């Protein structure tokens, strides 16, 4: 598979093939397949209970899949590879899980040892700097706010310089500035070739950070680049508003290059279906001027990833 954004190596950093996990009769996720290249930031979106955390735990060797297969950091996901896989990856779980009686530094020291990090002190300092926590290194974790704890957990996940980094909702509970810092950190990691598997509820975050996103609701609904998903799902449209209704809109619009259809959307508001907005907009403007119409605005309508998301996850009736 060659996709833009899939990275430097031909073998995937992470792949799943029909992967599934059930707890007794409850299916947490099912039939999940994807390939993620080295250095790619892969967004994993889905509503509460969609199976995101369970997928992360399964790929992170904490749970054994009940169906399918996967490779993680280049190794087949089998029990015998557990230790080696865990050496190559790290996971920032949903809740930070810090030792509250220990200081930030002591927490990180413990994990640096567990990852057998060489020059541990330097790496800890780097990790603390990356999350802007150097000043709080000697505070006990119990005394930190929720967002600060989250950042310690992120620093902990950076200690072993992972090939693949799983981030389970890394910015939930963070203030906007801290969230942006995490985004910048993720950008920096991507540039260093770290593969990032990011679950999030924040679609703006996914759109901004991710090379590709997958939308999960127990089964995978789609995988693709955010802009590609938008285009696939929504025809491109141009919104036209005039001061007074056009007497014969069909005549005005249908002759214009790249306009394939139109409909009225309220009085003196028209929605045109176009193949290329850059080509259609000037043509439509000229046609409107020629028809003596007083134009209020012409705009390309923008569908966000949120529109794609809501379209794909089958929002229960009444919510959409």
């Amino acid at each position: 598979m060659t996709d833009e954004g899939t990275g430097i190596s031909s073998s995937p950093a992470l792949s799943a093939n029909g992967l599934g996990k059930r707890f007794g009769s409850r299916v947490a996720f099912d039939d999940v397949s994807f390939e993620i290249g080295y250095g790619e930031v892969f967004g994993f979106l889905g509503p509460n209970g969609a199976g995101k955390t369970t997928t992360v735990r399964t790929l992170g060797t904490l749970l054994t899949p009940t169906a399918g297969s996967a490779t993680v950091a280049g190794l087949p996901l089998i029990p015998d590879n557990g230790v080696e896989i865990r050496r190559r990856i790290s996971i920032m779980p949903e809740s930070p899980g810090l030792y509250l009686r220990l200081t930030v530094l002591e927490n990180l020291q413990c994990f640096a040892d567990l990852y057998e990090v060489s020059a541990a002190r330097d790496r800890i300092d780097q990790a603390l700097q990356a999350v802007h926590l150097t000043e709080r290194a000697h505070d006990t974790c119990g005394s930190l706010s929720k967002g600060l704890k989250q950042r310690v957990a992120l620093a902990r996940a950076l200690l072993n310089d992972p090939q693949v980094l799983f981030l389970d909702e890394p910015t939930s509970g963070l203030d906007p500035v801290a969230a942006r810092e995490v985004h910048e950190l993720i950008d920096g990691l991507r540039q260093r070739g770290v593969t990032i598997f990011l679950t999030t509820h924040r679609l703006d975050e996914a759109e901004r950070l991710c090379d590709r996103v997958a939308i999960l609701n127990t089964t995978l609904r789609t995988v693709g680049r955010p802009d590609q998903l938008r285009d696939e799902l929504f025809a491109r449209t141009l919104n036209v508003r005039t001061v007074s209704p056009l007497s014969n809109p069909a005549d005005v619009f249908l002759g214009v290059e790249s306009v394939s259809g139109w409909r009225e959307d309220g009085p003196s508001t028209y929605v045109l279906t176009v193949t290329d907005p850059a080509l259609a907009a000037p043509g439509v403007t000229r046609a409107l001027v020629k028809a003596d119409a007083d134009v209020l605005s012409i705009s390309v309508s923008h569908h966000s990833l949120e529109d794609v998301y809501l379209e794909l996850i089958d929002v229960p009736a009444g919510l959409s």
Partner: protein
Amino acid sequence: MSVNRRLVRAIVSKELREFRRNRTLAAGMAIIPLVFSVQPLISVFALTSSASGPLRHEHVLLYMLGIPALVPSLVASYSIVGEREQGTLEPLLTTPIRREELLLGKALATFLPAIAVAYGVFALFLVCVGVFAKPGVASALIRPSDLLAQVVFTPLLAGCSIWIAIVISTRFNDVRVAQQLSTVASLPAVALAVLVALNVIQPSLRTAILAAVILLVLNRIGWRVASLMFDRERLITGTKS
């Protein structure tokens, strides 16, 4: 299986740090030995010199073996279920540490303070007897064979008690249930020590060696059993997170 010492050491030092700052656990570890040594001390002080004759055939000192049997279970039973309750088990299990190494680290982190407490209290007991008991009582009470038994059986009993408590800790979701069960589970060893001390069971060199060997084997099996009982998946997904 070769054990990675750095990983085990990381767990031990983390545990000891946490333990030092966990007042409830530290207090629990201090109170039990005190309670345990008060009663025998009082009865020894009450002994008259003429009682020292029959004393030579009893093993009052071995009563103190109840301490290594009982003390560590409180802390060890907390080891896994405590991590679970704090939500720290998941990050721990995402590191390359093997369950055998994790459990060995947990066991050692309990073993070291428990042994220190048991030997310390025992030494204090000896000093008290030596200083305050009536003349003749101390020499009748403190005999080399009993001292040796105390020294040898303290770590063996502590080890067994720790492994039982750890097994319980990996299988129960509630800290208090785990602690209570572990205490109950260490009572047979305590009872045995008391029965020997009261001369109900008459120990010989052979039975002592046999008991030591059995305890040694139990310690080795305990590590294995605890590792087998340690089910990553159940611990992550069980009712408590």
